[in-house]
């Protein structure tokens, strides 16, 4: 991803990636969004971030609103630092200047106040108030042009906040250096906030909509993962295999275990042993191969209890620091949010063994299902670049049979290894079987094995003689001599 020197870091996580390094200095930007979209948080977060770099910021409001109320709302946000006000972040009303002298009064105010305090960032909150005060479009166009000149003359970056819905052909949008939109959209019953750069002179940027979040830490932009990471295919199996903890499975995989740096999809119905196998893989963690369990449906306490009950001593491994268990709620979670959190947790501990329990969470969080394949390709690429060997579980709806419903979907394109776990009915008993569908660059064993859940975890054994009808779920022993 290109990045350029001399940019202004915004302090809004994710945004500088979208802008290839930050704002271009001495430029004028419009920040457009309906009331409540987050323009005020966005601009104040930028001001306070610049203050942490020793710079000064001037915040000019054009409506008859109270600055104390504004600051009261900001106080709950972690970026707000009351000690920076008024020396580094200075709030002033331009209402009277606009009323008495019009646009020229605002130009005077911006110059005098920013020069007095040496402001490098100027926010003008309420551009639509300026639009309303001008006699003609021509006057407004001239004012915006004058602002651009003023930004250059002062060496300051000017942000114009507006809730106006005027479009791309309006003069202010054609004349400014950048145009950012903070929008909201509602799909079914869920609402989402997004950030979009429509224009950014002097630099490239990542086009399109990026989801955005507002929390107690302010605004965060989530650049679409596939636009940041890329989706380079694997170019050779040069990493050491990682043992799964099940010797028979390692042998089926071609010896040694899962190909190093690969992603595996573990498919099967509920209760079949997917989580057990994933935790078994995690239990092989060491100081050299730290592991992470990333769970969507079970809390860390439940995961540890399950791992300990299966004989993997997970609690002890968590205490020693070899394993970490994280849980992420799926309530209104965004796809990119999951991706960035997961990657951050991987990078923080240099994780080499990853078990993501609940691939379905990605599907649930994808607002646009067509994004799932490129997103997963980017995620698995990023994991591979970090040297992570990952297992993802995915639940099949059918408890038994229903082979036609095995739809690997988007993930099959990026899962280098696929393992299928199924129930079969044999001799009036429900048994579990495992087969390998594909393994990256490996001469794997395609035979079907029976799964045994033992006190030391998941084990495999050969089926009791030749069978047929296994994939229908209703297995039958082959009668000797009935084939061929």
């Amino acid at each position, binding site marked *: 991803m290109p990045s350029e020197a001399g940019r202004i870091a915004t302090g809004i996580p994710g945004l500088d990636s979208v802008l290839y390094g930050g704002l271009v200095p*001495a430029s004028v930007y419009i920040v457009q969004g309906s009331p409540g979209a987050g323009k005020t948080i966005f601009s104040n977060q930028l001001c306070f971030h610049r203050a942490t770099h020793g710079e000064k910021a001037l915040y000019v409001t054009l409506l008859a609103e109270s600055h104390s109320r504004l600051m009261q709302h900001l106080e709950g946000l972690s970026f707000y630092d009351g000690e920076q006000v008024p020396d580094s972040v200075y709030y002033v009303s331009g209402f009277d200047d606009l009323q008495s002298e019009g646009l*020229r009064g605002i130009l005077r105010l911006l110059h005098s106040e920013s*020069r007095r305090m040496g402001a490098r960032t100027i926010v003008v909150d309420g551009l639509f108030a300026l639009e309303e005060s001008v006699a003609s479009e021509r006057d407004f166009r001239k004012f915006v042009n*004058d602002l*651009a*000149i*003023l930004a250059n*003359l*002062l060496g300051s970056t000017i942000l114009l906040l507006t809730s106006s819905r005027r479009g791309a052909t309006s003069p202010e949008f054609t004349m400014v250096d950048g145009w950012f939109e903070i929008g909201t959209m509602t799909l079914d019953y869920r609402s989402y906030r997004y950030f979009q750069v429509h224009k950014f002179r002097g630099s490239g940027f990542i086009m399109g909509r990026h989801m955005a979040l507002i929390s107690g830490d302010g605004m965060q932009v989530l650049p679409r993962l596939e636009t940041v990471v890329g989706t380079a295919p694997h170019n050779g199996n040069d990493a050491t295999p990682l043992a799964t903890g099940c010797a028979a499975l390692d042998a089926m995989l071609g010896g040694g275990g899962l190909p190093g740096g690969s992603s595996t999809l573990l498919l099967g119905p509920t209760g079949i042993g997917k989580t057990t196998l994933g935790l078994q893989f995690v239990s092989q963690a060491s100081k050299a191969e730290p592991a992470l369990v990333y769970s969507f449906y079970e809390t860390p306490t439940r995961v540890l209890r399950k791992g300990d009950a299966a004989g993997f001593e997970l609690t002890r491994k968590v205490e020693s620091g070899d394993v970490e268990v994280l849980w992420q709620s799926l309530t209104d979670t965004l796809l990119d949010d999951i991706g960035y959190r997961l990657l951050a947790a991987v990078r923080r501990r240099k994780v080499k063994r990853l078990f993501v329990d609940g691939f379905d969470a990605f599907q649930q969080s994808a607002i646009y299902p067509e994004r799932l394949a490129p997103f997963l390709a980017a995620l698995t690429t990023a994991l591979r670049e970090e040297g992570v060997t990952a297992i993802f579980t995915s639940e099949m709806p059918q408890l038994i049979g229903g082979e036609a419903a095995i739809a690997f979907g988007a993930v099959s394109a990026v899962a280098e290894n696929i393992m299928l776990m199924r129930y079969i009915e044999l001799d009036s008993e429900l048994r579990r079987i495992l087969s390998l569908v594909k393994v990256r660059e490996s001469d794997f064993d395609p035979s079907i094995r029976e799964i045994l859940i033992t006190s030391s975890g998941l084990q495999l054994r050969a089926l009791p003689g030749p069978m047929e009808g296994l994939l229908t779920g209703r297995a039958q022993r082959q009668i000797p001599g009935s084939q061929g």
Partner: protein
Amino acid sequence: MSAKAPRHVLLVEDEPGTLTTVALLLEMSGYRVSQAANGQRALAQLAREIPDIVLTDYMMPHLNGLDLIEAMRANPSLNKVPVILTSAALPVNIEPSKVADGFLTKPYRIETVIQLIESLIR
């Protein structure tokens, strides 16, 4: 005792937004500013009133900044008036220090302009 008269700057610039905005900022900094949209209009103004300093753009229609300076230097009543030349670019064979008393690359900051004006009219 009367207050000291403000220094007089003739600002020559063909881009109207820059002309009015720089003029505004200079006025707010205590200068009296006359404005001219090109070198030809500047010469007409110089015939009526001689400023303390001229701040001129280079690339302008009718009479550019270099031609304006040349005309001023040829006029005995104007050849002592300090001139600041501004431009985003100059011809490669032009050495700014040989043609003007000061030179500023565009875009410039207003503080830099004021510092240069003060150093030349002190």
